[in-house]
């Protein structure tokens, strides 16, 4: 294996420029100088990565676009029989190789949750699979957690390398890059010049320091049964969800929320079948054709969000929590609803539950 490399701050644009000739490079970046929120966008020469804070939107859409065309259809009337028409379907769409540069460990872990459902189960999702296969992650060891982060509480952590292909470690004057997989290794020739011994040593120190951090105090991995016990405690769920305004933020900013909707969008004889992000916090998420809705209020909807992530999912998928602890849903929630408090309170007696947080 080739050794570690070093990219100086002012060489980064050059490196990204070169890489973007061979593949689509996505970076976390601000819309413009006046905006604070960070999104993953395709690299362009006038766009620089912003690595000093977590992105608002995770790189979820790189592999799981908010809207994806599953197939195109067009109908043609039969010339001889006006009651008949012929349908033509097209579904081939090529995808290019992608590098996500500057993701965080929690961002990558989001896809490990996706993988269980879309790749490793009995049904393989071809749309997800083709993008997933072609996407590489160059991930930043994470030194900038805030009070909403809790990756260590769900079985990961700020130095978790699982799922990444390249590892980015900030050091004095730039970044030390290390390959973690063979595919990552193949990109190393593009990743700057050989790192000096001092840089390698500094990188090791940073890595060790971050690996020693615990982000999020509690352990949120063992709540499956507590959730089931609480399931019909309506008062608990009413109080917990009372301030929720039923928007889509927590699910849309979540790297692990994978629910979608499928609709046919047609005009006249032509159209597309698309799949688009859905949100279990929306009223119509479980509305049935009859008009009946088994989750008629935010009480049931919020309960589902918690149950899915902290009980149903780990029960089905080897104990894995369907939450990477990125804290986005807490940070961006218009009413600062704290999912940690809801999960932690599952095990508490009624008297000790702090419903107001």
């Amino acid at each position, binding site marked *: 294996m080739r050794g570690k490399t070093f990219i100086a701050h002012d060489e980064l644009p050059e490196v990204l420029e070169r890489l973007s000739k061979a593949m689509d490079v996505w970076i976390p970046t601000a819309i413009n100088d006046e905006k*604070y929120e960070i999104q993953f966008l395709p690299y362009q020469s006038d766009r620089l990565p912003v690595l000093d804070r977590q992105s608002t939107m995770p790189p979820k859409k790189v592999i799981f676009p908010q809207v994806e065309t599953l197939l195109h259809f067009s109908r043609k009337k039969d010339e001889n029989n006006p009651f008949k028409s012929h349908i033509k379907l097209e579904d081939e769409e090529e995808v290019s190789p992608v590098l996500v540069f500057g993701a965080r460990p929690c961002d990558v872990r989001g896809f490990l949750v996706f993988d269980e459902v879309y790749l490793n189960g009995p049904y393989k999702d071809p749309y997800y699979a083709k993008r997933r296969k072609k996407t590489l992650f160059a991930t930043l060891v994470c030194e900038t957690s805030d009070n909403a982060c809790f990756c260590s509480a769900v079985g990961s952590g700020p130095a978790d390398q699982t799922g990444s292909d390249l590892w980015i470690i900030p050091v004095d004057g730039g970044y030390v890059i290390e390959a973690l997989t063979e595919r990552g290794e193949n990109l190393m020739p593009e990743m700057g010049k050989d790192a000096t011994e001092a840089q390698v040593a500094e990188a090791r120190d940073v890595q060790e320091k971050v690996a020693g951090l615990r982000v999020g105090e509690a352990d949120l991995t063992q709540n499956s049964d507590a959730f089931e016990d609480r399931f019909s405690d309506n008062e608990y769920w009413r109080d917990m969800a009372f301030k929720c305004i039923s928007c889509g*933020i927590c699910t849309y900013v979540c790297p692990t929320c994978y629910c979608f909707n499928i609709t046919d969008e047609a005009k006249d004889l032509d159209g597309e079948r698309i799949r688009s992000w859905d949100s279990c916090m929306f009223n119509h998420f479980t509305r049935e054709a009859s008009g009946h809705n088994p989750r008629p209020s935010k009480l049931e909807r919020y309960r589902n969000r918690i149950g899915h992530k902290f009980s149903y999912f780990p029960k089905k998928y080897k104990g894995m929590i369907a939450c990477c602890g990125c804290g986005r849903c807490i940070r961006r929630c218009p009413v600062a609803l704290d999912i940690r408090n809801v999960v932690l309170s599952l095990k508490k007696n009624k008297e000790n539950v702090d419903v107001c947080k």
Partner: protein
Amino acid sequence: MPMDEKTKTLQEDFEKNFADLELVIGWETGFDRLHATPVFIRQPSELGKLVWNPLCSQNLSGYLAKNLDASIQEDGKKIGICVKGCDSRSLVALIQENFIDRKRLYIVGIPCEGTVDLRRLMRLNPSLKNVRKVDIEGNKAVVETDQETLRFPIEDVLARKCLRCLYPNPVIYDTIIGTPVKPRISEDKAYTAVEKLDSSDRKQRLAFWKTEFDRCIRCYACRNACPLCVCQDNCIAESRKPKWLTQRDGIREKFLFHMIHGLHLAGRCTECGECERVCPVEIPTMLIKEKMNQIVKDMLDYEAGIDPEAKPPLLTFDPGETGI
């Protein structure tokens, strides 16, 4: 009055009146001291949770129309609610539209020196940590952390809506906490942001909105946080029957949604800024409603949410109307 004192007065006032109340809606400290969160108090012993500070940005009046039955009087008990100037205007609008019954409310009004826009604050200070307290002293926002005390000019950190606010003092209340404050601008400056945008040509304006809306993720937080967006689960944005919008993520769908949102708020929007604050991708959605309100003001000489007895222009029809 300093913030801590206002918080104390607030708590004491509710304590005094709790016998007449079934619920108090206010703010408490959220997951850290830089975030406030709504709190719903049913036991007097919990009143100590209530806080008032420049982080109390959520407009709580929406809960009355959307989550609570605030129109029926049971046992003569009332709902206590804390409002800033802008929030109180939303209350007035909801009362005008019969969503809530004034008699059902015990309103505690708080003269407001403005709320902090966390994005603006964090942009100046991406590594801001361990915040203990945020307060406003004259023209400075004072941020105390465990390590230091930072001072920022308010123009740099207050929410945009607060810098152009004409009604920082609640327009409707039963009790007022502290003394009235002066608006930071004069009336003729209220629409400068809209005017600035209007001064660019049509193409530039279209380009501006295209860039902004392109980011919209259709999470509908702007709609759900709006106290006056009351259609909620029956919004044209999601309805498939009738089908106005597709599920596609193109600019056309987003544009239409925002235009409808704007149109439905014309002369109703109380400029509380919630739609803009909650947007996770920082789209200045309130600008559209400001424009609508500017037109309503110019043509009909009406401002939303000031007088509970007034009829909002789009809720009435006068066959003799002139000037339209």
